[in-house]
C-alpha cells in the first residue's frame, strides 16, 4: 500500500481518476483506523469521509520528498481526535449491532457453544467496552500501538507529545483494561 510519486503528482493537479485510485488504495486502512477509534460503523464512515476531504484540500501542502503514509496518518489521527462523537441512544434492541455484523441474538450461546468460545467472545466484549470507555488520547495510543504497530518514539512524533507522556498513556490504558478484566473475573 504505497502511493507512487506519479500518482501523487497527478493528485496535486487535482486529477479525478488519480484521487479515486489513491483513496481506494487507502480505504481499508483508513476505515479500520477510524472504526477502531469510534467503534461505530456510521461514525467511522463519517470520519473516513472527513479525512478524504482534508487530503483533497491539502494535497498541495504534502511534501513529495517525504513518504505519503505518515502524512495521511497524521491527518487521520488529528481528525479522529477532533471528532465529537454523536449522541447515541442507550436503548439496545436484540437486533442492534454490538460488534461488526453480530447481534445480541448471535451472542446468546446455544447448547453447542463450547466454553472457550464463550470465554473468547466475553473477553472480546470486555475489551471492546473497555476501549469505548477510554478517553480519546488513551484510545488513540492503543490504536497507534496495536493497529499501526508503531514504536513509542513514532507515536510521540505522530501525536506531538513527549515520549514519557506516550508511555504513561499506554500503561494507563492497559491498566484500565486490566481493571475491567479483573472486575469480570472477580
Amino acid at each position, binding site marked *: 500500500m504505497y502511493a507512487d510519486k506519479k500518482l501523487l503528482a497527478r493528485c496535486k493537479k*487535482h486529477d*479525478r481518476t488519480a*484521487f*479515486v485510485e489513491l*483513496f*481506494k488504495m487507502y*480505504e*481499508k486502512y483508513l*476505515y*479500520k483506523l477510524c*472504526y*477502531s477509534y469510534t467503534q461505530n*460503523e456510521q461514525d467511522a*464512515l463519517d470520519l*473516513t*469521509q472527513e479525512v*478524504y*476531504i482534508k487530503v*483533497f*484540500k491539502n494535497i498541495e501542502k504534502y511534501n513529495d520528498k517525504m513518504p505519503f503514509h505518515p502524512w495521511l496518518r497524521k491527518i487521520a489521527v488529528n481528525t479522529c481526535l477532533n471528532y465529537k462523537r454523536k449522541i447515541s441512544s442507550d436503548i439496545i434492541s436484540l437486533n442492534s449491532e454490538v460488534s*461488526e*455484523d453480530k447481534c445480541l441474538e448471535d451472542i446468546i450461546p446455544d447448547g453447542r457453544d463450547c466454553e472457550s468460545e464463550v470465554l473468547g467472545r466475553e*473477553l*472480546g466484549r*470486555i*475489551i*471492546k467496552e473497555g*476501549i469505548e470507555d477510554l478517553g480519546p488520547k488513551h484510545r488513540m495510543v*492503543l*490504536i497507534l500501538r*496495536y*493497529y499501526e504497530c508503531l514504536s*513509542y518514539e513514532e507515536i510521540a512524533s505522530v501525536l506531538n507529545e513527549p515520549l514519557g507522556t506516550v508511555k504513561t498513556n*499506554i*500503561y494507563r490504558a*492497559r491498566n484500565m*483494561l*486490566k481493571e475491567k*478484566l*479483573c472486575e469480570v*473475573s472477580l
Partner: protein
Amino acid sequence: MSCRFDKEIIQKYIDNTIEPLERIFLKEHLQYCEECRGDFNILMTAENELDKFFNKGIELKDIDFMIENIVDNCIGDEQGGILSHSIRIGKRIAENSSKFVNFLPGSKYVKKRVNLAATKSISIISTILRKQLDKLLPSD
C-alpha cells in the same frame, strides 16, 4: 495492592523492551508473589485480546461509491469556487476601469448636458407621438 514491585517492568516485558537482568528479576518475583502473578496474567491476556481486537477483519460497505462521490463533490466545489471567483474579479475590473471617467476634465458638465438632452429628447418624442396618435384616432 500491597506489593511494591516496580510494575513498569511487567509493562516492559509486554513491550519486549525489558533488560536481561530485569527479566530474571521479574521471573523470580513472579514465582513467589501471587498479586504480581495475577497482574501479569491479566495484562498478558489484555495484550493478546488487544492484538486480536485491532487486527480482526472489518467488512467494508459502500466505500467505493462514497469515494467517487467525495472526489466529484470536491472537484465540483472547487470548480464552482473558481467560477464565482472569476465573476467577482471581472466585476471589480469593470468597476475600476469605469472609475477614471469621473476624473476626466469636464466630465460633470458632459454628464449634466447629456441628462438634459435626454430629457428634452424624451419630451420632443412624446409630443410627436401624441400628435401622430391624434391623427390616427378618430375624433368625437
